[in-house]
């Protein structure tokens, strides 16, 4: 994806995780899926839920494992689609 000197670029903006950290995590633990990187490094666990970084992590995984990006699954989507306040779910009187 990038040359050696560019590896401090931010991959996950919500959680402030760099390309270098993603690569090191993949190599250290022998990871092959976006879900594993997400659970260990928090990349994609922030407020945007990985809308931007999941595809980037997948491309890095493809490079590190020698697989095609499309053969590496994207992470399981979890609701809600956008952060929402607890108060929304309360009845009028409880708010």
């Amino acid at each position, binding site marked *: 994806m990038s040359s050696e000197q560019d590896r401090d670029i931010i991959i996950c903006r919500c959680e402030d995780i760099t390309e270098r950290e993603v690569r090191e995590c993949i190599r250290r633990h022998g990871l*092959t899926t976006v879900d594993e990187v997400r659970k260990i490094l928090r990349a994609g666990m922030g407020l945007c839920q990985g809308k931007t970084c999941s595809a980037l992590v997948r491309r890095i995984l493809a490079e590190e494992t020698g697989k095609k990006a499309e053969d590496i699954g994207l992470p399981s989507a979890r609701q809600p689609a956008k952060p929402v306040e*607890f*108060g929304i779910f309360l009845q009028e009187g*409880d708010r």
Partner: protein
Amino acid sequence: MKYDAIIIGGGIIGASIAYNLTKQGMRSVAVFEKNYISSGSTGRCGGGIRQQWASPENCKLAVKSVHLFEKLDQELGFDTEYYQGGYLLLAFTDEEVEQFRKNVVMQQGAGVPVRLIGVDEVAAKFPFLDTSDLKAAAHCRTDGHINPMLVNQAYADAAKRNGADIHLFTEVVRIVRDRDRINSVITADVRTFETGVLINAGGGFSAEVAAMAGITIPTRPQRHEILITEPLEKFMDPMVIDFHHHIYFRQTKHGSVVMGYGDPHEPYTHNIQGSLEFLKTMSLMITKVVPAMKKVKIVRQWAGLYNMSPDAQPILGKVPGVSNYYQAVGFSGHGLMLAPAVAELMAELIVTGRTSMDISDLSIDRFAGRTEFKLEKAVV
């Protein structure tokens, strides 16, 4: 290919047993995991660690586990976010206070530094709680929480360094048994692995794993839902559990709050879909106990399986009639916190045939010929 021990399940129980087997000198150990490390119940759980239990068996194991957790990061060379911020149990009725009083005496006898505290002290020390309906609370300062995914990975990595093979994305689909002995397992990609012993660490699928070996065990899967909030400034030290509203919550190192609600009417199924009903109930319960939560945002919800046993306590050890099958199953939602102790004792049992702490009360024999059981009540 032949191993001395094959473990089915790469959750916290399987990974920690693999590590302890290699640590105790077993040479060829393998874990078979149908997905990846912590993809099942471990990676979905609340992450609490407490020694405040209603049964002496659970208490003893939990105390031993906390001693091991205290040294674990150093032993495994991993920052698992283990945090001894304490654990607070809330009582809202006189019956609950009476039960807590009895439990505290038993727990103190088991070496747990726990005490019952009054509402004024709770209000002063934990101002985030609405104490208007509270009667009392039990607090243990050496309880706490941990990052489940990290501690699971830490055990798996350490087992691997010690020579264990961790087969990820490799489902065992058949167990070959000849009379009283298990000979081998066959994987979905049609490979056969012979084994000296087989260990069932199947979590939510423990009954299915046992069934492949022709063994019937009384464990059942039950969905438990959970969510996480946006990160907040640190406002709470202890994890909190409230059996009255069936909720628990903790603030992670990252700042977000993890919380779950255990629906007492949840059926026994493998369903792990998150529901809107959960968000509604959780919102109602958490804002009663922590009113400031009304303005806090939910970021993500999910669910995982408790592997329930008939008395909500784990089932450990061998089964009658099969010489080389072992199981560590039925943790009923508290496998993570018991794992360090259970894994060490299970490895002792497998390697030497005896254990340094008596766990025979937790063997499957306790259910023989019985239909009613003394239930561990301190479960959400």
